């Protein structure tokens, strides 16, 4: 499995502006706890998947709502920060 995939640290999902289409470039699995990592995989987070931040609970902290495929998922920002994305062309 791609535990140590080369990760582009420039943009994390936590920093992705609302409404910008992006694809997952890599996930720093080792920064996540085992159950967190598993649930993230179960929700379909994986390299190459299209994602978009839809809403943010509040400025600064609080969870974010992310569209992944046809599903909306709530994530805390510390988790979103481990998901690196590249902007869609």
């Amino acid at each position: 499995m791609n535990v140590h995939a080369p990760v582009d640290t420039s943009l994390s999902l936590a920093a992705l502006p609302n409404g910008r289409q992006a694809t997952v470039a890599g996930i720093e699995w080792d920064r996540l706890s085992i159950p967190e990592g598993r649930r993230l995989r179960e929700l379909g987070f994986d390299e190459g998947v299209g994602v978009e931040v839809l809403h943010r609970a509040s400025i600064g902290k609080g969870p974010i709502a992310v569209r992944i495929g046809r599903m909306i998922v709530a994530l805390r920002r510390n988790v979103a920060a481990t998901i690196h994305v590249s902007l869609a062309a």
Partner: protein
Amino acid sequence: MNAAPLVALVGNPNAGKSALFNALTGARQKVGNYPGVTVERKSGRLVLDDGRPVELVDLPGTYSLEPSSPDERVTRDFVTGRQAGERLPDAIVIVLDASNLDNHLRFALQLIALGLPVVIALNMFDLAERDGLKLDPQVLTRELGVPVVPTVAVRRRGLEDLKQQLSGILEHGAAIPLRASDGVPEDIVTLQRRARQLAQRATVSEAPTRRWGHALDSIALHPVFGVILLFAILFVMFQAVFTWATVPADAIDTGFLALEQWIKGLMPDSILRSLLTDGVIAGVGAVVVFLPQILILFAFILVLEASGYMVRAAFLMDRMMASVGLSGRAFIPLLSSFACAVPGIMSTRTIEDEKDRLTTILIAPLMTCSARLPVYTLVIGAFIPNRAVLPFVGLQGLVMFGLYVMGVVGAFFVALVLRNTVTKGASSGFMMEMPKYQLPNVRDVALGLLGRTEIFLRRAGTIIATTTIILWALLTFPQVPAGSKVSQVNYSIAGRIANTIEPVFRPIGFNRDIALALIPAMAAREIAVAAIGTVYAIDDPESDQGGKKMVENLRGRWSLPTALAFLMWFVFAPQCISTIAVTRRETNGWKWPAFMVGYLFALAYVSAGATCWAATALGL
């Protein structure tokens, strides 16, 4: 009985398993428990076209066969035949959300690989169409090698077809070739990729519609408007509990009074008549009056869940819950606990983190449940003047609100302390799928309420009826000898017990009547009201003709500091054996319920005492 084949509904959370279960079995349902865990076992009878009965089981939703919560473990053990006391199902119906195939197909692949006979219900076909998605079920049938039936559980579409396919696979057993089972990879990422490919092949066309749910979410999840909306909904909910319930509650009250009069007309005055009227009818009636309020509260909660809003509320509350070491997920069980802590505690099963879940269980009894309402209503009505402090804001209502707030503030405070001591641990995460918005299905909400009504009435008929009968007996015997100056209550066994323990409660302002009421109220809080009523009915025969006299008795015998201390006691005290029992089952032992009872009594004692002293010092 065991001739009926066993069929399980399996799938991701929110795929529509319960809706499909309700549609297929109607009211022929049975709710029980799996041994050893409090995961509800919902089963029902389904009759196939040829008249064969099938036992259908609605399993808890899960994302994979690797469980991360007690619910999910039941699902895995059930479909692999490892669940204690269950046989391996004869077939499974995999329920998929057609509008979210990428994700749901992955779990389907895992399930098919188990090798059991399978039918796939491609559910929520209407939502897929609403989202501009055109699917070809034939492609899935071909690729997966199992029958795939498009269904719309809430409109009962596709059910006949589903039953037919089920009938077919039950006949042929595993004779259907399981193409996908050869070489299904174990690893979740590979499975996910295969699922995405499959979903793509099954998709005929896809119109990129901007979902209207997005517009709703822009408000519902907004940092400012979303919070305002949430509080507005909660306000309406509590308002409704108090205002809508009065008419049906009065009707129930009148009904019980009529029953009492009828019995009084039928029988001569005797011990038996007293048992029926003062014991059973007064006690059970005092509790059943609250059925409308409880149902209204549950109706709101069911609708909030079914509409998809509940997870949005959890999203908004996550930040605040995180500040005391919990997650937004805990908001859902805590909100249910306003109706009753028992289902609230049971719904913590979906919380994955063990310490997070334990903390939520331990603070759930601090949410003001509906059983406290009778106590609050009676005491506030007797002691707090009914005047306005502001236009539209009455003092009585304000005190009631204050008691709710006390509970919530107490819960947050306790959570903070626990998370830094006994349930210390890394902050748990918050990761939840947000279901699509929907108009709630009336039938499903009605079935949910019916289930709640049954549980409540069974409780009233068993625990509460038994306790009030025992209390009545303890208050009636031994009978005071004629001509004695000792009152019947003081002479009775209950009175003697109360007089013995009264010194423990005297420092916090409680009198003998309260000490007497607190013991039976351990069974259920509402009994406190019935107990005080019975005490005064027996002590003062004039007073059993309705509530008016009871209020006067209270005013005459209690001081205001005593009344306030009594209210404060009920904010915190763990007066409910059902809650203690469910906590024991949920935490697998007596350690945590004992801890819960201990800390809540300590909190209740200290705060009631502080209230009494402060009120006395202020000269109230």
